Structure formats: structure tokens, C-alpha cells
């Protein structure tokens, strides 16, 4: 019985020790043509914000770049991003997956 307990404790310890780190939030950079007024920027934010798993959106109106941070474990499908951008009245020029954000980095809700 003691032996079984020792094996169980060891197995649990090994499982915990070998468990992969919790996935850090994925971030993506979208390049959108013609994005330059708040009506446009808010439209992009609104449409992308309704995509499942999107946690934060930062729009740089001047450069036409949109940074999308996903909730932990979620990924952004390029087709979904393209659809949202199209619904906002724009074309998705480039879709990049950036390095994962460091764990603990602030990721507020999509504003």
C-alpha cells in the first residue's frame, strides 16, 4: 500500500513538473489599407472585437496597423480576420503572427 502511494505521489509530481507552461496570449499584426479616420478605426475594432477569442485590439490609424491580442489559448484565423476587416469596409493587406506576448503582460478587454 505504501509502495502504491509512493508511486502515485511520484506520478503526480512528475506530471506537474513536466506540464507545459500555460500558453501565452498570441498576438497578430494586421495591415489594412485606407484606415485613417475614427469611424474606420472603430469599425475595425468593432468587427474584430466580435471574433471569438479576441481580447484586445490596438489600432494605429497613421500606419494602418492593427495589433490583435488573443485570450490565452486562442488563435486568430486569417480567414476570420479577413472577413472582419472586409465587413468593416477594408482590405486586409498583410497578416502576421507576432511572438507571443510575455506571460503576465496586461491584456485588457477590447476597447
Amino acid at each position, binding site marked *: 500500500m505504501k509502495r502504491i502511494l509512493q508511486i502515485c505521489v511520484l506520478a503526480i509530481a512528475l506530471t506537474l513538473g513536466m506540464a507545459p507552461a500555460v500558453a501565452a496570449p498570441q498576438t497578430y499584426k494586421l495591415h489594412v489599407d485606407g484606415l*485613417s*479616420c*475614427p*469611424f474606420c478605426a*472603430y*469599425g475595425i475594432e*468593432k468587427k474584430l472585437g466580435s471574433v471569438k477569442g479576441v481580447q484586445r485590439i490596438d489600432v494605429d490609424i497613421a500606419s494602418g496597423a492593427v495589433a490583435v491580442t488573443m485570450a490565452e489559448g486562442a488563435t486568430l484565423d486569417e480567414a476570420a480576420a479577413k472577413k472582419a476587416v472586409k465587413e468593416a469596409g477594408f482590405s486586409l493587406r498583410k497578416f502576421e503572427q507576432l511572438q507571443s506576448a510575455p506571460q503576465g503582460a496586461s491584456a485588457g478587454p477590447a*476597447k
Partner: protein
Amino acid sequence: MKLNTALKLGRNAVIVLAIIIVSGWLAFVPSAKASSYTFVTAWGEKGSAPGQFNDPTGIAVAGDEVFVSDSRNGRIQVFDLDGHFKRRFGMPGKDPGQLGRPMNLAIHRGELYVAEYFNDRIQVFSLDGQSRRLIGKSGNGPGEFNAPGGVAVASNGDLFVADFYSHRIQQLKSDGGFVRQWGITGETGHGAGAFIYPTDVALDRNDMLYVADGYANRIQVFDTAGKPVNKWGGPFAVGIPGPLNGWFRVVTGIAFGPQGDLFAADFYNNRLQKFRADGTFLTSFGGEGTGPGQFNHTIAAAVADDGTVFAVDFGNNRVQKWRQVKD
């Protein structure tokens, strides 16, 4: 002889070309017909503290108070006519009293009407900031909105809403009941009564409807029967953008002054333009920059009872106050 003929032909061609250019200029580029405006003061900077803004997008004046949509901060800020902060209300969110990207504003009979771009509704507040009612919801059906950009209220209490992504203007009863619409839902167009991302609406004293047809670079006018009666903005008002007098590069907000003149925020031209109600160009003021009297994209305007103009300087996160130069 041949050389003479060629010279004559060339001279005639130059004359004809000059006549065309001058005629075109006279036809499509009106000159100022009223005295201009002088910059008085400005207030605001980027931030979230009282008196600071993060994307100001709309403005309205009631008596001695100026109401400003502080969009990304999800609130309305109230100032006196000299820009001194008085109070604020709202926070980002969807609940009553909260705001999702407030845009152009309207004040009617002591109530503030806020077009909420994210929440797809019109929220009505008392002027001291109490949420009184919500009108509309997300969608493309009658009485529903897809990113409302501006609102106006008729003398009988009916609402007129610029439904940005649906490319239409809706008229609703004060309780939100659908009355009628202009434009085909979700379809853009250059003809009279069709729109390309309309951003704002205004009503004159006779309840004639004026529409800031945002990305069609024009203003359209409809009578109380709903019939299109006028439009202007560039040659033939068919959507051609430009920097000349009476032309627009995206019109994002309109407001009437006490004399019945219409002020239009000409976003990418960084200026305000002033017109008679019939579309006659009167004057313009502003210019690109960060200094006094310069704009980093003019997005909205409101006019006080004494004719003082308040303009929202979107990119510089401030409000500017202007006064007409006396002749």
C-alpha cells in the same frame, strides 16, 4: 502659311483651354461670401483626467455649456464656454449610463442624445448626466443600427439617425418605432438619396433634413416629405473629394448656427466650412497643424447662441473656440 495656321490653331486651343479652366473654376470653386472666423482659444490634451481627451469625436452646445464626446474614454465631458471643466459622466461599457464609443451628439429640449458606435443605440441623458432611455439595438432591420454616427431630433420628437455601416438614414419615433429610411440598407450609392457611410445628420428650423454623406464627400438635403431637394460637395456632388472651397475630403459632422447657416467638419482638409442652408459656400477656416487655429483632422462642430463656433480637433485631442471676424 502652314506655320501660321498651326500657330493660330495652337493659340485658339490655348484660349479654349483657358476658358474651360476659368469656367470650371467659377462653376465648381465658389469664393468666400462672408467674413471669416478668428481663433479664440483651445483646451484639452491626450489623457483620461478631467479636461483631457482620448479621441474626442462629437460636440453639442446648450446655453452656456459645451458637451464633448470623449470617445475612447467612454464618457461625455461638460465645459463652460471658455473651456473650464464642469463635470463628466459615463464610462466604457454596455449598461445604461455606460457608453460604447460615443460619436456625434444632439441636444433637444434639455436632453442629450448620444450616438453610440459600439453599442448600436442612441442613449438619451439628462444634461446633468442621468441616463433616461436607450433607443435601438444591433442589426440591419428597421429601428436597428449598425454603428450609428450621429443623431438629430425633430420638433415633434422624432429621431433621425445616421446608420453608418448600413448606409442609410433612419427616422424613428421617440420610442424607437420605425417611421422610414433613406438609402438602401447595406448598399452604397452616388445618386440622390443614396449614401456612402453617412456620419451625421442635422435638422433646420423647418425640420428639413441635412445629411453628412461622409465618404461620398457631400451634403444631401431632404424635405419633410422625404424628397431629396439639394446636394453639394465637389462637381455635381457625386463623391469627388478635393481641397477647394465647397469640396470635402470626408465630412464627419454638421451643425446649424443661430442664423440658419450650416457648419461642416471637413475631416481630411483640416477645416470647417460654412454654408448657407441652400448650399452656398460662405467661408472656411482652420488648416493642418498643431498650433493655435490649426487642426489634426476636424471631426465635429457646434455653434452657441451668440454664433461662437466650437470645433473638435480629433488628432490633437482638443476643442477649439472660434469667433466670427466683424466686417
